[in-house]
């Protein structure tokens, strides 16, 4: 994989959440420093080199938006991922305007946090995935015509199915939550009720899996969906 390990600054006033997040980050091979307050985080940025910041919006001394503004004023350009309990577009837009790069609402799944962090890293280092020679099991992916080929067989995907596959593909092996897929594929930031994602995953599964064979696309109860190529 393209990603290297990151050294992260975690700014979170809730010690339990900080402990869990730190554990996940270390399990994923990253290292992290934890600060409880915005002021302390700004000091830490001046003394250590970090690859990215995970920043809670509701901090005791100043809100996360202010921390980012101050960071940007001081010339720190590293990516910032907001953690917040406030789930509305106005706050999201405010966070992005202040200089944040992405946004995770509590409660969140660890895989979602990782997926977003890696996307930020990818953007920061300007890495792009090679567009050719992508394979999923026996399938060869044709991103231009948005279809799959194998042994003279061709499967056409609708634009939305293709986007879904691409998002899953970009996070191969990682379980992605329904919330994350809704946002990335349909730009929807609420739960639309009816099992729309499940139905779409089933449809995609029917197109890419061999009948009766093992599935490339697994549902993990309580967590979400994961794309894992099977031969």
């Amino acid at each position, binding site marked *: 994989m393209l990603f290297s390990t990151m050294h992260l600054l975690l700014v979170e006033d*809730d010690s*339990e*959440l900080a402990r*869990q*997040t730190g*554990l*996940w980050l270390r399990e994923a091979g990253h290292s992290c420093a934890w600060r409880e307050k915005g002021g302390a985080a700004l000091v830490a940025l001046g003394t250590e080199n970090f690859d990215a910041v995970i920043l809670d919006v*509701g901090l005791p001394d100043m809100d996360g938006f202010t921390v980012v503004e101050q960071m940007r004023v001081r010339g720190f350009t590293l990516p910032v991922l907001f953690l917040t*309990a*406030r*789930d*509305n*577009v*106005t*706050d999201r*837009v405010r966070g992005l305007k202040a200089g944040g790069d992405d946004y995770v*609402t*509590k*409660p*969140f*799944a*660890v895989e979602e946090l990782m997926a977003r962090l890696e996307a930020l890293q990818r953007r920061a280092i300007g890495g792009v995935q090679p567009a050719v020679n992508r394979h999923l099991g026996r399938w060869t992916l044709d991103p231009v015509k948005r279809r799959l080929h194998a042994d003279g067989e061709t499967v056409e995907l609708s634009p*939305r199915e293709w986007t879904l596959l691409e998002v899953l593909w970009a996070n191969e092996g990682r379980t992605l939550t329904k*919330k994350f897929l809704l946002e990335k594929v*349909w730009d*929807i*930031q*609420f*739960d*639309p*009720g*009816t*099992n*729309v994602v*499940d*139905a*779409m995953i*089933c*449809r995609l599964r029917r197109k890419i899996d061999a009948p009766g064979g093992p599935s490339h696309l697994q549902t*993990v*109860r*309580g*967590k979400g969906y994961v794309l894992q190529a099977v031969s």
Partner: protein
Amino acid sequence: MFSKLFPKRLPSTWRLGLLLTVLITCSTGLCITVAGWAMRRNLSSIARAVVLDDLGEYAVLYNRNGLREITEVFAAGGHEESQAVRITSAEGRAIFEQVPEAVGGYDWPDHAPVKMKPSETMLVTIQHSTRDQHLLAGCQVLDDGNVLWFGRTDAEDIAYVDHIRSQLWLAGLASTAFMLLPLWWFVRHVLNPVNELMNSARTLAQGRTDERLIAPHAVPELQAFAAAFNAGLDRIDALTSELQSANDNLAHELRTPLARIRGNLEIFHDHSENAQARDAAARGMEEIDRAADLVQTILTTRAGEHQALKLHLEPCDLRELLAQLHDLYQAAADERGLRFDLEAPFPQPALIDRQRINQAIANLLDNAFAYTPGRGRVTLALERRGGQIRILVKDDGPGLSDSDFQAVWRRYTRGSAATANTPGMGLGLSLVRALIHAHGGQTGCRNREEGGAEFWIDLPVGEAKSR
């Protein structure tokens, strides 16, 4: 009383203007009529006096020196153009005639109308043969038995009265212009401010609380009214922002512990090899996600109901938005064996919070999908109705009972067709209503004649502004 005379929709400015103009015209007309009548009366009595006076003078001259004296007087000149002198014999033959052109056209009588004694005088009025003018003629029997006639035409008097009348009309017009000054004042200081206040109030009715009533040119009473009204709005605003921050705090207080529990469950799930334990943790995570959504729904509904919802308004095309939702639900519809149609025949730009409107429509679709049996049909449609846009979700389900129509929009109320297996807590439609009210729109529902229910969202187009 007067208001009945005007068409209902005529603005007050025009009503007042018309009323003033009619009143001034009537009073000016009345003044002119009365003044004209009085002047004519005056002038005619002056004319009688002049005629009798001059008749007497000419009679004295004639009686003293005969016709020669009269001839000399006229030879000397200076005779008025509007006056004529005639002398006729007792038989009616004209002996002397001095009739200027202006006095021509009158049919003088040959004899005095009655038998008269010498030096007795009499007045007669002679109508002009073609014009609406009169000649006031006096006659006196002279000492030698001849008759002296002296006539004076009223042409000059009529011209004079007409002149005065036109001057009076001019004065009337000028006074009308002056009378319109109070109208101008009324329009500027009363009517226009009332209209401005009305516009502000309309904006407020659409849910904007940052608008204030402003009427800088208004009369003090209206300014006092606006100030009192604004004070009320300030108070509502303060309560709204209090509610907003209370909502934010509540969200934080509830979501953070949910996040802690979920995190621990996830760690447990990922590190446990026991399938049962993993399943239990997975169920726990599902419940937590549901609880987090519920908290968000309740807070959003509460904020929407109290006009405290922060909207992120952006221009977007409703047809495109509906097409995306149609696309999102299509797979789920196929899975259920439902026919799911989109009827959005025209692009419709609107200034809305895209996520919130999406969420409202998604809730209606979710409802329709839950209540429509297999092989049924759900339709998502866009219609134009006057200045409003209607988004409809029609289904083939069991429809609504009479008690449902209002009740379904309330929190924690489920329609009578809900069963134990129907998902939801009865919050969906109250959320829809709150989101749409926050946009200044309306929601409604009815049973379709062909069966099933129809829910709709009415949105004002382009009127709401960024909050």
